C-alpha cells in the first residue's frame, strides 16, 4: 500500500535533485529546468496532503503554482533568448558585469 510517506519522500527527492541542479549547472537553461523540478516537488506534496487529508485547498493552490510556473518559464526563456542575443552565451558564469 502506497501511503502519504512515499509521496513526501518522492517530493523530497525531487526537491533535492532540483536544488542540486540549480547549484551545480552552469547553463541558464539547465537552471530553469531545475527550477521546474522544485516546483513539481512542491506541487506533488500539496496534492498528496490534499488527497490524504480530504482538503481540496491544496489542489487549488497547485493550479496557482502551475500558472505562476508557466509565466516564469515564459519570462525566463525570454531572458535566455535576450542573453544569447546580447552576449552570445547562455553560461551563467560568463555574466559578471555587476561584480564589484
Amino acid at each position, binding site marked *: 500500500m502506497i501511503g502519504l510517506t512515499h509521496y513526501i519522500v518522492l517530493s523530497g527527492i525531487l526537491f533535492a535533485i532540483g536544488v542540486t541542479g540549480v547549484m*551545480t549547472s552552469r547553463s541558464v537553461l539547465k*537552471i530553469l529546468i531545475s527550477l521546474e523540478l522544485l516546483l513539481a516537488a512542491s506541487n506533488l506534496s500539496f496534492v498528496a496532503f490534499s488527497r490524504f487529508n480530504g482538503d481540496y485547498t491544496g489542489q487549488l493552490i497547485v493550479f496557482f503554482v502551475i500558472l505562476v510556473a508557466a509565466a516564469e518559464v515564459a519570462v525566463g526563456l525570454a531572458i535566455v533568448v535576450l542573453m544569447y542575443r546580447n552576449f552570445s552565451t547562455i553560461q551563467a558564469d560568463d555574466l559578471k558585469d555587476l*561584480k564589484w
Partner: protein
Amino acid sequence: MVSPCIAWTTLLSPLVACAIITLFFLRSKLWSSLTAIAGILVSFVCTLIMFSQIYHGHSAVEFQHSINWINIDALTIVLGVLVNPLAVMMLMVVTGVGSAIFIYSRGYMADDPSMPRFFAYLSLFAFSMIGIVLSNNFIQLFMFWELVGLSSYLLIGFWYAKPSAADAGVKAFMVNRVADFGFLCGILLLWSMSGIGPLRSFNFTDLQTVVPAMDPHMLTIAALLLFCGVVGKSAQVPLHVWLADAMEGPTPVSALIHAATMVAAGIYLLARTFFIFEPLHEALTVIAYVGGITAFMAATLAVVENDIKRILAYSTLSQLGLMVMALGLAGPLQGMYHLTTHAFFKALLFLGAGSVIYGLHHEQNIWKMHGLLKQMPITGFTFLIGTLALAGIFPLSGFWSKDEILALAFEHNKLLYWAASITSGLTAFYMGRLFWVAFWPTGSRRDGQTSSSKHDHPAHESPAIMTVPLIFLAILSVIGGFIGIPHFLYPEAHHPELNMTVAVISSVVALAGIAISFAIYGKRPEYDPLESKLGAVYPVLKNKYYFDALYGWYVDCVQQGFAKLLFWLEETVIVRFGVHGFTGIAKASGNVLRHLQSGLVQFYALVFVFGVVYLFFIMVTRL
C-alpha cells in the same frame, strides 16, 4: 460714535498706497508721490474725524474693535484697534507731521531717480507706525514694532550704494534686534502670568484688570523686559548708538522716523501700558535714571558734533531721555505732552536742515555754512523758531512741555531735576552754536568768503513745496503750548499750576546757554574754539564716550572669539567625529561586504539555499 471703520481706514490707507505704488507706479515719480501723499492725507482726515468726535464728546472716550485671527485652544490672537485720547493724540502727530513730511519729500527727493521706491517705503513706514499706535494687544503691537524696524532699515539704507548708509541700516536693525529680544520675552512673561489656560490674554484692557493681582517681583522683571524694547526703539543708553548713524538716510526720513514718530514709539508704548509700570517703584526708578543719563549724555555729545543732522539726532536722543525720565517719574502726561510738542519742532528742525542740505547740494558740515539766514530767509526763520522751541524759550511750545517735566522732577527727584536742567542749558547752548555758526549773518568774516563762494553753486531758497510744510510746522511749534494738549490727553488728571521757581530757573538756564554760545560763536570763528578749551574731555566726547569702540571690541574680540571656539568645536567634534565618523563606518563596512559580490550565480544560489535551510531550522527549533 466713532465707527471702527474710520480707525481701520486710518490704519490701512497708507498700506494701500504702498501696494498701489509697488504694483503700478514704480516708474512714475508723479503718480507714486501723489498716491503716497493721498494715502497719508486720508489717514490724517480720519484722525481728525476721530479727534473731533472725541473732543466734542460725541463718542465714547475709549472703544475697541477686534477681528479673530488665530484660535488654538489655549491661545487666542486677535487683530484689533483700541482708540482712546492717547492714541488719537499720537495719531495726530504721526499723520499730521507725517503729511507735512510726505509733501516736503516730494520736493526734497525730486532729483532722485528712485523716488517711487522712497514713497513706497515711506507709506509702509506710516502704516507700521499707525499700527503700533492703534494696536489693542501686545502681539499685534510687536508685529508692527518689527515692521517699523524693517521700514526704518529700508529707509536708512535707502541710498544703499553708499557703504556707510548700508552699514547704518544694518546697525539700526541689529541694535533693535537685541532690544526686541528682551521685549518679546517681556510680552510672553506677561502673557504667561495673565491667567490660566484660555484666560490668558495679550489684550491691554484685559491685562489692565489682572495686573494688580500679579506677583510684583515677576511683574517687575516683565516690566523691565518690556522696557528693553523701549530702550532700543527710543534709543536710550546703552542702545542709543544706532540713532546718530541713522542720519545716513535721506533727511525727510530722519525727520519722520528718527525725530517725530518711530523713536516716539517707545515713549508711546510706556504711556499706553503705563498701568503695568505704575505700581512698580523699582522699575520706574530704573526707567527714570536711564532717561536722565541718556538726556545728559546725548546733550554733551551734541556740543562737539559738526554735522548738522547729527547735532539734531543727539538733541532728539536727549529729548527722548527727558520723556523717558518723565515716564519714570510716573508722569505719562508730561512725557506724552513733550513728545507731541517735540514732534512738531524736531520735524521742523530736520526739515529745515534738509532744506539747507538741499540748498547747499548735500553739504552737512556746519563749519562750511555761513550766514544762511540771508540766503534762505524762510528756512532760516523757521529754523530759528524750531531752535527757540527746542531750547525752551517762553512762550514757544517746548517751554511748556519741558517745564512740566522739570516741575515733575523738581517734586520727586532733585538729582534728576538738576541733570535735566543742565541738559536744557546744554540744549540751548548747542542749538545756539548751530544757529550762530550756520545761519547768523556776520560781517566779521571776509565778505567774499561766505559759504556761497566755498561751493561752486550759491545757496538758494528751497521751492514752495518744501517751505510750506516748514511754515505749517513752525506755526504748530509756536502754538503747541496753548491748544490744550494735556487736557485732551488726560481730561480727568489734575493739572498743577505753572511752578514759578522751575519756570524761572529753566528760562534763565536756557537764555544763559544761548548767551554763552553767542559769546563763543557769535563772531563766527573759522574753527571750533571749544576744541582747545575742553582739553582732555574733547576727544572723549568726539568719540561718543567710546560706546562704538566698546561694542566694536566686544564684537571683534569676545563674540568673534566665541564664534571661533564654536567653529573649532564644530570642525573637530561634530564634523570629524560625528559626520565623518558615520560615513567612515558605512564606507568601511561596504569595503568588507563588497567582496561577497562574486558574480557567480551558483554561489548566490548556494547562499540562498543555506539561508532558507537556516530559517527552516530556526522555525523548527522554535516550535
